[in-house]
């Protein structure tokens, strides 16, 4: 590439990519068989425990929104990620970080020493003592809309199958 013939201004004058390509439009719309069918939409809504669309217009608008979102996702998926492990979360994965996270014998020594040895073969056994926990110091039933005594109440289905 010669630096003499073209100037930076000329190179930057014509855009090679627009963010608009990530939005779906009639020109870059998906092929016929890639379209989301109403059946698929209903299945997805059931899996997410969301209500089904009430009118055909609502259904059409839902499918259109989903379609444009999928267009964006497909553009992202086109990036070559061979040999790259998927990221689950951003954590300290250095050796030192992993070492700090490791659950070693030292961390568990206290608990192990509280055990007793039982029987002829002196098998280790945990002693069941009454433990108090601060995490329980709140009224779990305070936010319940329906309750019966100390229980939460849920309306069951009359003739239902398990999820």
């Amino acid at each position, binding site marked *: 590439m010669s630096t003499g013939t073209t100037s930076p201004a000329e190179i930057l004058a014509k855009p090679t990519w627009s963010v608009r390509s990530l939005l779906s439009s009639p020109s870059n719309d998906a092929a016929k068989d890639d379209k989301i069918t109403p059946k698929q939409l209903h299945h997805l809504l059931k899996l997410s425990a969301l209500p089904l669309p009430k009118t055909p217009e609502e259904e059409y608008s839902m499918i259109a929104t989903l379609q444009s979102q999928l267009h964006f996702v497909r553009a992202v998926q086109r990036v070559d990620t061979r040999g790259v492990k998927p990221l689950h979360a951003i954590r300290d994965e250095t050796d030192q970080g992993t070492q700090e996270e490791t659950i070693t014998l030292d961390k568990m020594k206290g608990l192990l020493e509280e055990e007793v040895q039982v029987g002829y073969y002196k098998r280790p056994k945990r002693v069941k003592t009454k433990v108090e926990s601060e995490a329980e110091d709140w009224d779990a039933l305070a936010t319940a809309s329906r309750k019966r005594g100390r229980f939460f109440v849920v309306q069951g*289905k009359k003739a239902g199958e398990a999820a």
Partner: protein
Amino acid sequence: MRRTATAELGRYLLQGRLSTRGCLKISQRAVCRQSSLRTSLAGASRSLQTASTSQPAGPPIVPLRKQWRDEAKQAKKHGKGKAKKDSQTVDGWELTVGIEVHAQLNTSKKLFSPAVTSFNDDPNSHVALFDVAMPGSQPLFQNEVLIPALRAALALNCDIQKTSRFDRKHYFWWDQPSGYQITQYYESFAKNGQITLLARDGIAPQDGDSVTIGIQKVQLEQDTAKTLAQSDDTQLLDFNRVGVPLIEIITEPQMHYPRTAAVLVRKIQMLLNTVDACVSGMETGGLRADVNVSVRRQGDPNTPLGTRTEIKNLSTIKAVEDAIIAERDRQIRELEAGGTIAGETRGWAVGSTETRRLRGKEGEVDYRYMPDPDLAPVVIGEDLVQHLRQTLAVSPDMELDKLIAEFGLTAKDAVSLLNLDNGARVQYFYRVLNGLETMLQANAGGEEMPVLKSYAGVVGNWTIHELGRLTTSKAGPFSQVELDFTPGGECAQVPDAELSQLLYQLYTKRITGKVAKELLMGLYLGDLDAGILETIESRDLWFQELSTEEYNVQIDTVLEGEERVLHELVKADVFPQRKLMFLIGKMIRSGPTERIDPATAEQLLRTRIAELRAGA
């Protein structure tokens, strides 16, 4: 034995008349048998020697009672085995079973929150914010969970993975507040283990001496809430159980018989209990099994496995076996009728004969497994694994092997001993044995101790059978009192020290067996004012055995009236053991019973007979 009509039986017993229908050589046989029976009935003698008195010319007659005994023996050998064998196999079909066991870990706190684990506490009293998915709450991994989890994985011979991760399994149900269960779908903390089942564990006879089942993986996961169905279509929810740590043990599909699968579940339960990983059993709902069943035609081992169905939430060992048999039969029926098996989830209710459909095809439920971004990977230190491996509890198999090889118990007795009273009875056995050993050592002084197997056998017999007889004896209202054992093997009703003392006196032949049993009953009922030794002293229960001359006097008395029997004993080529036993019995009954030891009596009687044989 075949049952005979009452009329025919009556005619035979009271009148000596046999039905001759269907007999080939009727005349002579019937006559002979009738005459021999009449003499035996007339005599009403307790001995069975009919053949010797009435032996008419003709075909040799087998004494009837002996014939009945032989027939019963034959029937037992051939007839009985059939029924059980049939339910384990079906001709032409091969069954394949895989099992998933869910067991609650023995911890004080839950898996991702510091709330306390409990059983039957007040509803909704041990619930943290994260347990009910309060918006904004975050999970907090509790390290304590690793101790029982690692012990369970090590007991199953698994490879422990240094790094393991948590995933979300999404589905909506009212017992799962967050809408997903946190489990370890992709990277579990342990995999590639195995468990060996032996014939003494009770596997199907078709599996031979032993079978080794591979464990695919062991993973940590959360438990769900407890629901109580009400009659008005509502459910009451108790969230105490949400978030309690479970391990899921997934086996390879390597089992081919229902009995073996049931035994696997029982053995896993016992193993987890021994290493203190999971101490609440199936009865309390702490351990549940899901079974995957498929069938395929026998023959080519390369044919792919048939479609599998899953039977969920089986809660007893027997249910596991029954459900597998029912499902296998249903699948075979379907396939033979030309249909196909749908890969569905089925349920089993105790007492039913067939599984029922719970849910449709596997594809219909999409769990959308996804790595949980809120939880860091669990990194397990090698030193912790090593420590737990070295201090892992002695396995039940090793304990059984020692009981059989060193202490001389039979396999059946050893297995029952380990299973009684949730492992407390065997600790009691060790205590009694120790006490007896100390006493024998003190008694022996410098001399040689008796053989371990001989006195360990006595302790075993009394700990298993005699103690068991106490609670089932027909002693009236007193038999209601159960025997209470602490986990360390102490018993309130029959203290181990007292039983040691009793068995010491019995083993060294200072008291007879009959007296020992009565003393045990007295001790159990609390009738004895003082200890065993004092009671024997105060009531003078010592065994004063007859001297040899007194024995010989008894033998003379007994042989006086029994010329015929004596003749048999002296003259017969094959030594008739039963006649000897008869004489010993007579001696015990007629002479001073509590002073005769049957073993010594037999010995002296044999010597006398040997003398007579030599002389005659």
